[in-house]
């Protein structure tokens, strides 16, 4: 149940919106899908972001800027029509369903970062940044935004900034037993090559203990080397995702499945998967 005195605000500028959310009990409203699920009585005001002109996707200097009010559906359409943002577009096309994707926003999904997020793993793998405003504007790598605890503070997410991903090789996996269920975990893998040598790599999983894990040690094994089955076997020793058991799946089950999927995706990229 919401608070009976719930008030709505429709500011037309970011400073006004930020000023409003500085007050206790007043929060931003993006698509509202999460706010509706939680229906906290402590919320006394909702600040709708629809008049803040944050519904844009722009490309500038090999970077894509995606405004906080953009829906998953809009990113998917943009990615298909412009043949770009392929990793993110594909990941978001698998989230929920068409009408839900038409509602959930990038801003709300970053700030909320649910365990089943389809958004965060690819954003970390892509080295995306997030621009926030809490009185002044800051641009922070998405990984730092989460690990530093900034995600939990009061601020407005203005946009995400994503490097062009034309030259990367990537795989993602949204793991769920039934397509329309919330995913149990999401994996994103990225490789960038310099000739035949691995120049950059990112192995990320969300849905785990502490919400996400990036396997830096495993990534480092491939640096400036040819991708091979032998290296993948070595790297797998450092890919140990840790989960919490829930009413459906034990942590051991999730850990085993996640490891198998990681290895399959890596072998697939290396071209050695049967």
């Amino acid at each position, binding site marked *: *149940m*919401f*608070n009976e005195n*719930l*008030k*709505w605000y*429709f500011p037309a500028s970011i400073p006004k919106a930020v000023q409003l959310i500085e007050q206790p009990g007043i929060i931003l*409203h993006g*698509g*509202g*899908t999460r*706010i*509706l699920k939680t*229906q906290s009585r402590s919320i006394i005001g*909702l600040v*709708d972001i*629809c008049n803040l002109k944050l519904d844009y996707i722009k490309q500038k200097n090999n970077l894509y800027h995606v405004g906080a009010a953009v*829906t998953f*559906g809009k990113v998917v359409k943009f990615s298909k029509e412009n043949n770009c943002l392929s990793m993110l577009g594909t990941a978001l096309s698998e989230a*929920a*369903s*068409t*009408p*839900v994707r*038409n*509602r959930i926003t990038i801003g709300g999904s970053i700030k909320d970062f649910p365990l089943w997020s389809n958004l965060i793993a690819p954003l970390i793998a892509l080295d995306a940044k997030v621009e926030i405003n809490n009185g002044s504007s800051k641009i922070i790598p998405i990984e730092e935004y989460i690990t530093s605890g900034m995600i939990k503070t009061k601020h407005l997410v203005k946009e995400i900034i994503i490097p062009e991903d034309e030259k990367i090789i990537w795989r993602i996996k949204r793991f769920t037993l039934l*397509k*329309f269920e919330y995913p149990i975990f999401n994996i994103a893998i990225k490789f960038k090559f310099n000739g035949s040598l691995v120049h950059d790599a990112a192995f990320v999983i969300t849905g785990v203990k502490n919400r996400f894990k990036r396997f830096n040690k495993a990534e480092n094994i491939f640096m400036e080397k040819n991708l091979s089955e032998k290296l993948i076997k070595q790297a797998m020793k450092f890919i140990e995702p840790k989960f919490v058991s829930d009413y459906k799946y034990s942590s051991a089950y999730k850990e085993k499945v996640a490891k198998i999927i990681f290895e399959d995706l890596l072998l697939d990229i290396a071209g050695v998967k049967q």
Partner: protein
Amino acid sequence: MKIKFNINSKIEELEIRPDATLLNVLRDNGFTEVKCGCSEGECGACIVLIDDKTVNSCQVLAMSAASKKIKTVKGIGTLHNPHLLQKIFASTGADQCGFCSPGMVLSAYSLLKENPNPTEKEIAEALDGNLCRCTGYVKIIEAVRRTAQIMNENLISRE
């Protein structure tokens, strides 16, 4: 509080609670063609168009839709003046109990406006948010395909 909504191209001033979902506001004010199945965003019975995009009205706080164009299935065609999709859904046997039909028809309508010639896969993808307990989906997909075909052959407007 009284709030103005644009529903099916008419301005309606409705008494609402600030925490009401769009689904409840619509149904409480006579738009009972919008169905309530799960209230969780999973079945698609409550689908309406907001600014031409399908959304689950049970997942929308009504206040956030106040300045937008809302369309229910009656906004595209009525019993006496049905849209081609509605006619073909009926003649193909794509509705049985009919509970999912308003949402299905709106999802199909939105698809055909964007993609006049969808493949079977594209139709299934566009209807991924609509559950039907009766038909097994085969007739629904057939109805959407037939509608697209007739619209294209006869150059009928998708409005």
